[in-house]
């Protein structure tokens, strides 16, 4: 079954590549492939068992696959020395703001729609996947 799951995964990656090739949009082909895969699962064109095992393995070990890319930092020591204040400062400030605002917006909007009877469902939890 693993070979089928790999085939499905690479099929959707290839479809993503095709969409980017045909349209020239500046979105990574892998993101298009991810959206097409979600859509195909939702429309039941393919089933979870056709892709889940390999997908869960890759998602569960995401960290490993970008370690070699990170090692390329070796070539950028000068750049980091010159700009580390901007890199660290901007990332830290922005992270603070995002954490503060995202949850705040969610709370505000949910409170304003909270009294509808259907909102009882909103306490349910999505399936944990990672």
């Amino acid at each position, binding site marked *: 079954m693993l070979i089928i799951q790999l085939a499905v*995964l690479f099929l959707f990656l290839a479809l993503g590549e095709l969409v980017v090739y045909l349209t020239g949009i*500046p*979105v*990574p082909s*892998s*993101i298009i*492939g*991810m959206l097409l*895969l*979600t859509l195909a*699962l939702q429309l039941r064109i393919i089933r979870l068992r056709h892709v889940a095992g390999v*997908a*869960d393995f*890759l*998602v569960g070990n*995401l*960290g*490993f*696959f*970008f*370690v*070699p*890319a*990170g*090692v*390329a*930092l*070796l*070539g*950028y020591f000068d*750049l980091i020395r010159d*700009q580390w204040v*901007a*890199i660290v*400062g*901007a*990332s830290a*400030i*922005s*992270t*603070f703001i*995002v*954490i*503060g*605002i*995202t*949850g705040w*917006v*969610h*709370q505000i909007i*949910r409170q304003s*729609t909270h009294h509808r009877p259907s*909102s009882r469902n*909103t*306490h349910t*939890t*999505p*399936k*944990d996947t*990672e």
Partner: protein
Amino acid sequence: MMEFLENSYFLIAVTFAVYVIAQLAYRRTGLMLLNPILVSIVALIGFLIVTGVPYDRYSEGGRMIEFWLKPAVVALGVPLYRQLSAIRKQLLPIIMAELAGCVIGIVTVVFFAQLFGATREVIISLAAKSVTTPIAMEVTRSLGGIPSLTAAVVCAVGIFGGMSGFKVMKLTRVKSPIAQGLSMGTAAHAVGTSIAMEKGSYRYGAWSSLGLTVNGLLTALLTPTILALMGY
């Protein structure tokens, strides 16, 4: 004999070994700072400097590992599919919160990086810093930034956001567990998610990984436009 150090398969084996050891160390100690990705990157850079193996030789093997990044991003469609029903139940709050987090995250990091005098390629590399590394690196790569800088910054942001997140949310009075989980996942991706799971129940973690996926998607779709509007 020393030439063997430059053998691609040997270097791949070293990369596996370093990552496995880093992961063990992280699990044994539970220390946030021992993030296995950052530790592996630092250890491997150290290994290359000590042995004198040039980066170009290392990357011949490294490319074979990196090759799996794209299929791994496609694979994120599976968790996204599993979360669809939860997203649909509160579509408006989730989409609005994620849109706000995504746009504000990109705009503020670009603005402050500009203010602090970062160069163009560094600014582009920081734009996607909030989202999970494979997506962030893909965005950086397609816009002409430095993917390795993005990888390191994303890990650091995850650790920083994970350690400071609950204090920030106390300040802005984010109290509901759903909102807290979403915030952590949106700002600090998988690392924030793991902290959310340790701090709270299973619920925090699930909402946090929802934030991670949705923000990853929005960031990939919106970053080119937002950067263009800001003059990049």
